[in-house]
């Protein structure tokens, strides 16, 4: 006789659980349950739970745990098979989705209640036998029975809706979202189902969709328009993901767009006639360029062709400026032949043009192209090319230096504020950094600096120092050492000037300098360019006295230093009294002053023949300057704008002396001569005679009489020599450290060590051979390609 309290399987299952819970549940799901907020009341639930509980805790053989577990699953499976799947199988499109979502939601509910009813199984039976939990089991049934069967159709339906939306239609976003969520659920704690059953198909469809769209766009749109479309499409897809897809899909989806819209069509877009990248650049369409940059940075190496076009554009623009300069040069050459201005190293227009181009595209690099290194390099490569091209007789390094000279000297025709000057200097230094022959620039710059400083033509000491510090931070202290030395010499010079004045005052009787104002600028040898000293010159006694006094002073102030006077530099203010006592203050160079003084009536002056004319030869002898220099001095005094001296050329075939003195400007005809006229020379001849020009007059009282420069702007030979030395020093340094190197390695090392110029490998080879001859290096006997250091 059985225990009346024992629930049999049949009793418990069929009469209780099914009846009270499972069947009603199915019915509710089938027919809808909108009215109910809760499908089962607590009482109903408790009852079922308890039955289940009891059935699971009864003693064996009445412990129905296993059976209940099996039947739990079977119930769900049957329901799905018999009711759910059929309802989906005959639907399509949006209808299918609707049903799919509904059935999915239902399943959640069913799963939830089943799990609640049979909860006790989860606690012990499931755990003990390591079975899938009730919830998992239920879910799996849904996946294998329903989901796997309909997923293809469902996916297709979703994709269709998405494409409709892409084409501008309105779709039920919530429906799609819910559908997608079921896929996510089907992955059982992973996105596998989502990815393989939905996302993959979506991506393929996306490729197809956009590939087809592009066909139309690419032919009818200009590049800017096309790019706008791309941006719009990207934004739309982003929004799509946010609205109803899994966030993981975003990057893959956008990649699909990148591939179809950008990567595949890049060349066409960049080179489109009338709207491609080059056109955008030529028309400064900066917004479109920004967009282009943004879009193409999305694809691998997408920016490389853009940067290339950028570089070519800059190079062409710069090339135009060079062509313009060469045209100017040619015009100048033609005029030079006619006697006008020749080609000079002063072409501010050219430098400004280059600076403007550089500035414009540097800004573009930073603003439109996000300071991307590809574009920085493009700009750099373009300018490295431009700045080292042939631009006529003078190299760009020379032109750049002369431009700086303009900026830094007084009396410049450009009226620039301090800020503007500084800006120009800063930009010029940028341009400078592209030069390969920076040492040439330095040489010319130093010479020009020295000229500015010694002739008091420097506009601002601060600006000079500023420029030098910019060069220093670009190139290092060694590069600017001499320049700084020059400025320092001047600063020290100020100090000396003060104490020399004091010295003179205190030693008036000794010096007797009295009325002559005299100041000295001491130049430290090595800092300054080498100037000819003309130390054979015969100084007028007054000047001589000055130099002697200064030497005394200097020897007191310093020790072990030798002063070498450089009469080629320096200035004088000479008071000239002409005619009936008209006094003019003449600003001249020292050499000019010395020559002028020779014409004084003062018998104390050398050659002072009391105002009489002096022949060139006699003059040269008495003053003792080289012939070509004397010619230049006399030219400035007798043939230039202010003729304080008269030039008396030797008349052809006749008397050429004092008798024929007349105010003369070098072009008068010798009409009286019946013999053949020698062509009147505009220049100074050694056969000339010169005299004080008593008739000289001028509206201004203070005049500067310029003289042509005695020095070249720089000495190209010197630059070459310095380079040879630098190359040899580098070779020896490298070989000493490495002891053995192949030829190619040595050349490469040398090039990398020389920062201020870039020698031809041939030049390096010549230096290597020279060092072999001088036995610093030898060739390896086995390997002719290798050198060895000879200690």
């Amino acid at each position, binding site marked *: 006789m059985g225990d009346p309290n024992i629930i049999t399987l049949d009793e418990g299952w069929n009469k209780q659980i099914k009846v009270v819970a499972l069947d009603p549940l199915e019915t509710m799901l089938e027919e809808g349950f909108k009215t109910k907020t809760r499908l089962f009341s607590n009482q109903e639930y408790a009852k079922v739970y308890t039955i289940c509980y009891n059935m699971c805790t009864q003693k064996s053989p009445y412990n129905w745990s296993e059976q209940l577990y099996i039947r739990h699953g079977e119930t769900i499976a049957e329901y799905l098979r018999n009711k759910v799947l059929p309802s989906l199988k005959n639907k399509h499109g949006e209808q299918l989705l609707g049903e799919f979502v509904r059935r999915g939601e239902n399943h959640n509910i069913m799963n939830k209640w089943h799990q609640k009813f049979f909860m006790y199984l989860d606690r012990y039976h499931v755990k003990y036998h390591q079975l899938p939990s009730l919830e998992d089991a239920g879910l799996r049934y849904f996946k294998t029975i329903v989901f796997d069967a309909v997923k293809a159709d469902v996916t297709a339906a979703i994709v269709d809706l998405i494409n409709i939306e892409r084409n501008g239609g309105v779709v039920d976003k919530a429906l799609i979202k819910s559908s997608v969520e079921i896929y996510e659920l089907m992955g059982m704690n992973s996105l596998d189902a989502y990815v393989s059953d939905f996302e993959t198909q979506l991506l393929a469809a996306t490729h197809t969709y956009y590939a087809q769209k592009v066909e139309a766009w690419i032919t009818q749109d200009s590049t800017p328009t096309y790019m706008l479309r791309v941006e719009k499409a990207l934004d739309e897809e982003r929004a799509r993901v946010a609205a109803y897809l899994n966030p993981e899909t975003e990057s893959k989806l956008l990649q699909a767009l990148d591939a179809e819209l950008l990567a595949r069509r890049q060349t066409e877009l960049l080179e489109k006639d009338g709207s491609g990248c080059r056109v955008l650049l030529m028309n400064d369409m900066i917004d479109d360029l920004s967009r282009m940059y943004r879009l193409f940075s999305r694809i691998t190496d997408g920016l490389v062709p853009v940067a290339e076009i950028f570089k070519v554009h800059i190079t062409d623009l710069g090339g135009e400026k060079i062509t313009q300069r060469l045209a100017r040069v040619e015009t100048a050459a033609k005029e030079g032949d006619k006697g006008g201005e020749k080609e000079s190293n002063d072409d501010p227009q050219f430098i400004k043009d280059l600076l403007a181009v550089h500035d414009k595209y540097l800004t573009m690099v930073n603003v439109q192209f996000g300071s991307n290194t590809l574009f920085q390099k493009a700009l750099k490569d373009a300018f490295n090319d431009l700045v080292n091209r042939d631009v006529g007789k003078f190299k760009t390094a020379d032109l750049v230096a002369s431009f700086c000279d303009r900026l830094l000297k007084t009396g410049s025709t450009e009226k620039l504020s301090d800020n503007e000057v500084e800006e120009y200097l800063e930009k010029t230094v940028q341009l400078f950094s592209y030069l390969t022959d920076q040492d040439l620039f330095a040489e010319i710059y130093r010479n020009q600096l020295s000229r500015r400083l010694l002739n008091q033509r420097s506009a601002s000491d601060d600006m000079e120092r500023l420029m030098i510090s910019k060069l220093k931070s670009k190139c290092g202290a060694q590069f600017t050492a001499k320049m700084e030395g020059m400025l320092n010499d001047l600063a020290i010079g100020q100090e000396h000037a003060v104490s020399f004045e004091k010295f003179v005052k205190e030693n008036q009787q000794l010096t007797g300098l009295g009325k002559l104002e005299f100041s000295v600028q001491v130049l430290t040898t090595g800092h300054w360019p080498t100037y000819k000293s003309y130390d054979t010159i015969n100084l007028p006694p007054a000047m001589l006295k000055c130099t002697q006094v200064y030497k005394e002073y200097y020897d007191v102030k310093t020790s072990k230093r030798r002063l070498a006077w450089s009469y080629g530099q320096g200035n004088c203010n000479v008071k000239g009294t002409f005619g009936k006592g008209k006094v003019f203050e003449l600003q001249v160079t020292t050499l000019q002053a010395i020559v002028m003084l020779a014409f004084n009536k003062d018998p104390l002056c050398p050659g002072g023949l009391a105002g009489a004319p002096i022949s060139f030869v006699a003059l040269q002898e008495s003053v003792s300057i080289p012939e070509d220099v004397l010619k230049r001095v006399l030219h400035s005094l007798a043939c230039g704008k202010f003729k304080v001296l008269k030039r008396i050329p030797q008349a052809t075939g006749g008397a050429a002396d004092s008798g024929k003195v007349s105010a003369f400007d070098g072009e008068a005809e010798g009409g009286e001569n019946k013999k053949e006229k020698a062509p009147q020379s505009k220049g100074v001849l050694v056969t000339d005679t010169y005299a004080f020009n008593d008739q000289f007059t001028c509206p201004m009282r203070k005049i500067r009489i310029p003289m042509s420069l005695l020095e070249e702007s720089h000495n190209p030979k010197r630059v070459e020599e310095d380079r040879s030395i630098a190359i040899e020093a580098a070779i020896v340094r490298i070989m000493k450290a490495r002891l053995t190197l192949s030829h190619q390695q040595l050349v490469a090392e040398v090039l990398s060590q020389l920062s201020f110029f870039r020698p031809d490998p041939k030049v390096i080879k010549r230096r290597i*051979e020279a060092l072999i001859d001088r036995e610093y290096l030898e060739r390896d006997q086995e390997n*002719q390609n290798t050198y060895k250091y000879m200690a």
Partner: protein
Amino acid sequence: MFSSKKVAKKDAPAPAASGSGKFDPKAADSLYESLMDPDDPDLLSMEGISKLCESLELDPSSDVRVLVLLWKLGAVSKPGNITRTEFTTGLQKLQASSVDKLKSLLPSLDPGFLDRTQFRDFYKFVFQFSREGTNKTIEKEIIISLLPIVLDNNRAPHLPHFLKFLESTTHQRITLDQWDSFLHFNHQIKEDMSNLEDDGAWPLLLDEYAEWRKSAAKA
């Protein structure tokens, strides 16, 4: 005693003995003295060397064996000369103390017997010996006449071209490095220049030669 009669192989050093007797230091000395200038007893200049050549019936201006002999004797201290010590020591090395003995050695002085390393050494010697006084370089004209004496078309397939090139080049003097490198060049670079690389370490003179060949080929 000259025991084993060695078979003269082409690349073996010259046979030590096949003539008159052993080395006699006194004879060597008197040989020297017969050649020297009494005013300059320690150094045999080209005059004295020419005397020797006469008795050996060699023409010093065109016979390479003269140079080979001087090389073997070891005339290294002063270009164009040989010191007494070098002469006598050299003779001893050769085991020759008479003109007759030297004459018998003449066949062995053919530079064809020298292997590559030996020849390189000899070749270098020729340059050093042919300098004038303390000059480190040699005039182009001398080089042009010297090269064909020392080199033949086998050792130096570039020789005929190079000589032509030298006539037109602006280089007026040739350095040891250039001289030396020319031989290497012949070893390494084919006559048609097909294996010459662009960025080689050859002296500039040879780069110019290569250029000259190239433009001559185009013409």
